[in-house]
């Protein structure tokens, strides 16, 4: 109960919002300036048809930037939190899938894999990256829950 209270304390929620916003804005801005490079990194996942790679590479960084701004301003906060959790769940699965492909193709150990996942932070160790994505999913869910609880609380009053 105490942990739950702490996790959903308004100051903590502000902390999540600002940290997540900083990460999203940094990652988004990095990619906005190099859409072709980002599209190439997306291609390496073999999850999207080549025809839509460029479009996704142009839109996705702006989705991150918009969500980041929403976390700072408080506008469309529930939508941004849901998108954050949704996108990072997909990213975590995509990275894990690519890691699995690499493991089955090369026989390399999961904990030895590192590549540029297109996340805006260059070459990273994949186990750490997946963990980071899951933390972001958790942060998004905590922001969502805190919002819903806040709304429910105000209705009761």
């Amino acid at each position: 109960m105490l942990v739950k209270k702490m996790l959903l304390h308004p100051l903590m929620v502000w902390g999540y919002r600002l940290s997540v916003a900083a990460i999203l804005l940094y990652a988004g801005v990095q990619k906005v300036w190099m859409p072709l490079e980002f599209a190439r990194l997306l291609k390496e996942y073999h999850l999207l048809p080549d025809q839509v790679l460029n479009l996704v590479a142009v839109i996705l960084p702006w989705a991150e930037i918009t969500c980041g701004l929403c976390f700072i301003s408080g506008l469309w906060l529930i939508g941004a939190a849901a998108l954050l959790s949704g996108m990072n769940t997909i990213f975590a699965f995509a990275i894990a899938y690519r890691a699995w492909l690499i493991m089955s193709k090369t026989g390399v150990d999961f904990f030895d894999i590192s590549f540029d996942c297109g996340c805006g932070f260059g070459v990273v160790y994949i186990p750490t990256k997946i963990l980071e994505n899951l933390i972001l999913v958790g942060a998004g869910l905590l922001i969502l829950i805190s919002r819903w609880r806040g709304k429910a609380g105000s209705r009761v009053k």
Partner: protein
Amino acid sequence: MKIFKQIVAILVVSFTCGLGFNAFSPHGIDIFDNPWSKNAGLNEQEPIIFVEFDRACRFIEGKEGIILDARSPEAYAKGHIPGAHLLFFYNMKEYYQKHKDLLKESPGILVYCGDIDCEDSEFLANELFNLGHAPIFVYRDGFEDWKSHQGCVETGKEKDECW
């Protein structure tokens, strides 16, 4: 319902900003273009050049630069082009550090992986280009093609790994 409205609003803003920024940015790209083909970049003026056996041979015989094997350490140990250094693409952090100085000094780089269907040489070439290395030659048909032309094969791990 509110949540979906907000998600749609964020996506609409992202689409608008993305397409608008792309239209006016100097780094903007054609969103309907599909440049992801190994047939692209056969022009020697490009920083990444796809080459076939003959050009790869000339690179090696003329000692035009460093040769990199983008495959796994196991595949490399089983056999590789003589003089090639292992730079396993999926463990760039470790292998790039190992060859960083050599790559900086090298006037050119030849990269290869398994065969025509393998993309790791292309990925590695792009990564190296982003790290400031050029020109980079990608031996498009890879090690299987090298063997089919009766090219010499060296086996074993890299020397510095053995010692």
